[in-house]
């Protein structure tokens, strides 16, 4: 057991992956001497060399596109996209090559690459540094999308992602990089694609992922002060979603609120609602509600608190699903 921040846990997880397999390499902007703008790769170039920790030219399609070639050659590249808002230049490579080459080659090519993206808001940043692009990738067949929310998850999930043979979009909730937590260096807490009940409760199920999990837990704490028992599920795997524990929870509570920073329209939150209303048709006692970023471009961060699903908004939704039948 060790106490460390999520950024450090990722760093340690990457280090271990690099040690475990000489085919693992890292590629991205400023990940070498600088250690990445969040220092997640701090010290790795010094220890593993410039051939494995590759400071790339400034072009995201290039980062992903060359990583595809490295994967074809048998490497296991881990790409770093500096911020969420900068992954879009790589979108074509991700959607047309990364997601499809395994299938196009009848399984001959392993697209065993991980694309790390610090994502989401809550850090008071300027434009393009607080985006939630996970929905685009969740919608794309051929990809998987995961997001750790604790240092322990971060340490293990990055290693699990790197050893997995499918391409994985690894969304790191950057607002939690600096938060400390216990890391068990010996045993992973659970599988890479397993959802996790972050807080138990009986009245309402709140499903969240990434940066919203912390907000959801805080809202649950606030709700408990008002005598409401809110269960919070951390989806962890955004695609595929791990529905069985979610179904179990909704069958227990009969009420569902889904929380995500991304705008709701045609999103992961829509998927959670669509699927759970189908699977829990007779259990749901109120319409499932979504609490998400509004349907606008991410605003100047001075108002991000109001734009994002904050505690008030979650509590309001909890009130509404609780009050529905009364």
């Amino acid at each position, binding site marked *: 057991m060790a106490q460390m921040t999520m950024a450090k846990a990722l760093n340690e997880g990457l280090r271990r992956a690099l040690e475990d397999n000489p085919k693992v390499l890292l590629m991205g902007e400023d990940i070498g001497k600088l250690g990445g703008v969040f220092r997640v790769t701090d010290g790795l170039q010094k220890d593993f060399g410039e051939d494995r920790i590759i400071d790339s*030219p400034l*072009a995201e399609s290039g980062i992903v596109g060359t990583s595809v070639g490295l994967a074809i050659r048998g490497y296991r590249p881990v790409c770093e996209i500096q911020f969420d808002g900068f992954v879009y230049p790589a979108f074509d490579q991700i959607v047309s090559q990364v997601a499809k080459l*395994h299938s196009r080659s009848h*399984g001959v090519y392993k697209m065993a690459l991980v694309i790390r993206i610090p994502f989401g808001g809550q850090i008071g940043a300027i434009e393009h540094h607080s985006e939630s692009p996970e929905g685009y990738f969740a919608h794309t067949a051929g990809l*998987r999308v995961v997001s750790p929310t604790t240092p322990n998850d971060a340490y293990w999930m990055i290693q699990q992602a790197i050893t997995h043979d499918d391409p994985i979009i690894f969304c790191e909730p950057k607002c939690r990089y600096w938060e400390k937590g216990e890391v068990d260096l010996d045993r992973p807490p659970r599988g890479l694609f397993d959802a996790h009940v972050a807080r138990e409760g009986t009245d309402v199920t709140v499903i969240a992922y990434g940066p919203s999990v912390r907000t959801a837990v805080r809202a649950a704490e606030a709700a408990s002060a008002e005598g409401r028992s809110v269960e919070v599920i951390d989806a962890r795997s955004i695609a595929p979603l791990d529905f069985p524990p979610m179904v179990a929870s909704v069958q227990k509570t009969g009420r569902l609120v889904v929380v995500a920073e991304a705008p709701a329209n045609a999103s992961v939150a829509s998927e959670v609602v669509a699927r759970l209303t189908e699977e829990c048709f007779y259990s749901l006692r109120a319409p499932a509600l979504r609490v998400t970023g509004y349907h606008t471009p991410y605003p100047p961060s001075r108002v991000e608190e109001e734009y994002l699903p904050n505690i008030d908004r979650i509590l309001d939704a909890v009130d509404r699903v609780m009050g529905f039948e009364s």
Partner: protein
Amino acid sequence: MSEIPLVQLLTPEGERVTHPEYESTLGKDEIFGMHRDMTIIRRLCNEATSLQRQGQLALWAPLQGQEAAQIGAGRALQPMDFTFPSYREHGIAWCRGIPPEKWLRLFRAVDHGGWDPQQYRHSVPTIVIGNQALNAVGYAMGVQRDGAEEATMVFFGDGATSEGDVNEAFVWAGSFDAPIVFFVQNNQWAISEPTVRQSKIPLYRRAEGFGFPGIRVDGNDVLAVHEVTKRALAHAREGGGPTLIEAFTYRMGAHTTSDDPTRYRIDADVEVWKHRDPLERVKAYLVRQHQVPASEFDATSAEADALAAKLREDVLAMDSPDPLSIFEYAYADVHPLIEEGKRDMIELGVGGGAH
């Protein structure tokens, strides 16, 4: 074409000319072999066109006019090299030893690939223009990291040089001295658009600005293409870094069988290029210089016809895939939505056998 430097070793009339930097290293048999290759791929290409006309293929992208570019380049490859094609590189596939019916699986719409890319060291075709350029550079960076003496070669068209991805590939190749050869077949057209829409200056010059050499070769001269490619591949294998080869050629036919070139180009232009036919000039040279008798060419034609007949047979025998196969390689590992889809399809009574 005249003022721009271009490597040529064989004139359109089949005369051997000298070049200050390149000399042909090929003997009669090898040149005859290349003529044979070119004859065969042209014949197979024509067969594919007629298969498409008869409704047996969804589409076909003919290579007619580009045989010298592809065979000259393809025969310069060594077995350990790895190649990344677009959708028109049937000649390269031929040189890599891929059975012709496999090239047609994509065009019969029964497959997105068609062959095992690792077995033949020839990647699956790329249709999204330019995507493969970055993939190839990445592959070459892998070769570099392995310390292997292998070259990577990537093929694309004149149109592709405008895509961001291709230019990023140039950036990467220059920055990392990747052991790669960019081979652009400038066939003068990107569907209906002439090359000048992409660039007002010759495409080989694009490389200069990225810090590595570019060279234009007469793409209808199989000897010249061969020498230029051989040297660039050797350069890459020896750690000399990237080269951009512009094979200056012409797409004699339509862009694909869906295209109607009469809408955008005039017959007179095509006529000009007929006189530069890549097969005729080698044949003239072989006849004049090496006294190859007509019977040998006839034998090649017969061989090509036989291969074409075999191709037709193979294509007609090609079944649609089992619908359930769509679930097979979507993911490497189990995935709940794949399992669900399979279950649904089976419940609907679809799939489970050949269709």
